[in-house]
């Protein structure tokens, strides 16, 4: 059965209202979610920041003794140094590495 003009208009407006209402409430939910998770994230680095100060860099064995490795395995460090030497075309003993640090995303 076809609807009356006024009834159809009311249903249409009501539909738009319901969609806006639902999505505005969803927007508020997302804002709360973002606020809560971001606050937690900010608190975490404060606690984590204290730890690295205590961690001393590891000195790689078999080198001149002054290369410092931060969160890097000596085998990986050796590989990195070999790649750099090969890329530069210079023997390893002519290069001096100060430190190698793993970059975390």
């Amino acid at each position, binding site marked *: 059965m076809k609807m009356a003009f006024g009834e159809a208009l009311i249903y249409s407006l009501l*539909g738009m209202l319901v969609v806006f209402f639902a999505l505005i409430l969803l927007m508020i939910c*997302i804002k709360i979610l973002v606020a809560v998770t971001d606050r937690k994230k900010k608190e975490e680095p404060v606690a984590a920041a204290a730890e690295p100060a205590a961690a001393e860099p590891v000195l790689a064995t078999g080198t001149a003794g002054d290369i410092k490795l931060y969160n890097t395995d000596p085998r990986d460090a050796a590989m990195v140094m070999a790649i750099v030497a090969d890329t530069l075309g210079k023997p390893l003993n002519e290069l001096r590495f100060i430190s190698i640090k793993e970059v975390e995303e």
Partner: protein
Amino acid sequence: MENILQILGRVWETSGFALMLDDWRQLVMIIVACFLLYLGLVKKFEPLLLIGIAFGMLLTNLPGAGMYTPELWDLYIANGTEVAALSPELQAFIAEHGLIFADGVVNLTFTELIHAGGLLDILYIGVKIGLYPSLIFMGVGAMTDFGPLIANPKSLLLGAAAQLGIFGAFFAATFFFPANVAASIGIIGGADGPTAIWLTSKLAPEYLAPIAIAAYSYMALIPLIQPPVMKLLTTKEMRETKMEQLRPVSKTQKILFPIIVTIFVCLLLPSVAPLLGCLMLGNLFKESGLTDRLSDTAQNALMNIVTIFLATSVGATARYDRFLNLQTILIVVLGLAAFEIATIGGLLFGRIMYRVTGGKINPLIGSAGVSAVPMAARVSQKVGQEANPSNFLLMHAMGPNVAGVIGSAVAAGFLLALFGQ
């Protein structure tokens, strides 16, 4: 010799060529199916769906093939009705197929339907019970990044505004159709194929083919439909607006988002739970990082299988005696109006946000609120870049774009709650 002629005569009588002479509309539908195949294969209009839909349409209009039997579905809908109260055509169908109903009341089960129907009738069960659209939504969820929406929650407003297309077309359609059909026509404005099929299969299954074809055809034509309206409703200065980079979204936020949306929206509109629940489940598979195999299955193998079933069975509903009429043309026209109204709604709200934020939001991203992921967002990017080559709106437009998917699902839930039986 006489026997041979009799045999040949019988072969001719039972052939589709002879049966086609009974009604010329079958030939017209075969031509229409071939034209849609041309659009899909040559013009590449949504080929993943249009080819399946067109082929389903071709199969169902081959006389004598019996691939799809709409009369069976009419009987299924008429379950509980007395046989004597059915139309003469349906009564003749019951007699012809030897269907017997106890107490003279129609009571057709899926088992009987499978026995009496053709291959496409069996596939159509998944449409009828709303299985395919929900599974497609699961795949869509597994492929969608809600990050831009979480980064800029205001996008949801643009997604909501673009639903004006649904309710505008619904309002216009009520002048010509009953409310349940008008609601199904309106949902074309959601520019979301699975939602359109899901709602229509529940409210007006007899109009499924024209509505699905209109929805998918216009989605494919979005790069042609939207830009003129976008340019008409925005100034060059507005289109040139560059937007600030979106803030990064954490993994925790992306994981919590589908859970919160499911709980919240499904509590508000329980009728939308099958669609939105599956959309968010697929997204959770993707974002959790623990279910890569399931995410991969949802967005590839499962999605592909369901797409084949969905497209061919929806196409099959376009049988000549039900498709070739003025109502189909009216649906196609109203569908186009729905898309344009949706674009206008998103753009006008985009303009409001442009003013309110002091020119920080480019109103072009409003047109992406019509869903049609990611095509509509790409169109926003393209039109924005035409105005200002250094403009990159794609990620900003993805926010309203995915908000439109949620918005159209909410609108579908609302219409189902109103007009569903």
